[in-house]
């Protein structure tokens, strides 16, 4: 995992979201194969967009509170927050360029 991705939990989620202007959180689970397809893409993006977008990763199995709060019913789901406000999430595996374009449009 990229050093630019922070492991999040139900406990540190809010403070992470609040302390960065633009945040992408990858909601995943160990058994979810598409999540493993997405992971290397987000690793690259986290490095490319370091300093512009803060990347986090949340295991939905271990952190049911956040999954429940954001009504997550499919993984991978990428939650995106701009100045603490939830934007339209990205659901499912997406090509790197699509995710990048979406994030750039939020800057």
């Amino acid at each position, binding site marked *: 995992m990229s050093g630019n991705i922070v492991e999040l939990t139900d406990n540190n989620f809010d403070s992470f979201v609040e302390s960065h202007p633009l945040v992408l959180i990858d909601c995943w*689970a160990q*058994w*979810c*194969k*598409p*999540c*493993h*397809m*997405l992971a*290397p*893409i987000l690793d690259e993006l986290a490095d490319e967009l370091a300093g512009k977008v803060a990347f986090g990763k949340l295991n939905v*199995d271990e952190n049911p509170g956040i*999954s429940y709060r954001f*009504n*997550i*019913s*499919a*993984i*991978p*789901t990428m939650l995106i927050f701009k100045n603490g406000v939830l934007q339209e*999430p990205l*659901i*499912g*595996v*997406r*090509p*790197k360029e699509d995710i990048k374009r979406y994030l750039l449009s939020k800057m």
Partner: protein
Amino acid sequence: MTYDVAVLGMGAAGLQAAITAARKKASTLVLGKPEDSALWSAEVENYFGVPRVKGRELVSIAMEQASAFGAELFKEDAIALSKEEGVFTITSESGRLIQSKTLVFASGISRKKLNIPGEKEFFGKGVSYCASCDCNFYKGVPVAIIGEGSEAAISAELMTNYASRVYWIVETPQASEHLKERAVSAGVELVAAKPKEIVGDSKVAALILSNGRRLAVNGVFIELGARSSTDMAMDLGIIPDPEGTIKVDRNCRTGVEAIFACGDITGKPWQVAKAVGEGCVAGTEAAAMARGV
């Protein structure tokens, strides 16, 4: 017996891989359903030396050719793959276990979208394309599985461990009797109809069927076709890209030892010529590796 080469997919790439490998005296088995290949329903007019031909004619000739060189054709889909001590085990949909020294993925690109109203709108809000990913979110609620092949049968059976009721919407099941029986004995209810529309407010509330019946469900799992190769590839350590394609080098090697890929599954152009070319390379390489030459 342990085959030298097992090929997944009975289209242009898979059959060419089998022809090439069998001609090189490798014991070869091809799994798949020829009618599921993209070539089967295509009309081809840009293939070398052939002015115009129906895809199914090419496939049928290639099947005979592969058999004539000694390849075994087995018209079933693989539903699971594993590797132990250098030998691959393939589970077919009837439960047959096949062992092979090498594996060639030639199973094409699967069509996953259903294209009915509500499908796009409710994606991630009750519509899912991955039962094994999202099963946990549907504990104690009714769900519907849409699809005719092995992927739907396996997903329906899986969902009985989570959902309160599991409907399998299937007009003409293509999955094997073995998989169908497993699903039914797990408590899956078969509904012979076509899906027409997915409805709800902010989340899925029901699935409307072509016969007018309204099924109250909170989840709709769209699982078309055979169990996807990309899904099984991941069990062996291959990570496909978001389009579901498997990256290969010029020898059709996937990066995971003894696994090759060819045809549409490796990416565009989705042309018979490219599929056949790659099939030839993959078949040659797999046979050479298995036979240690």
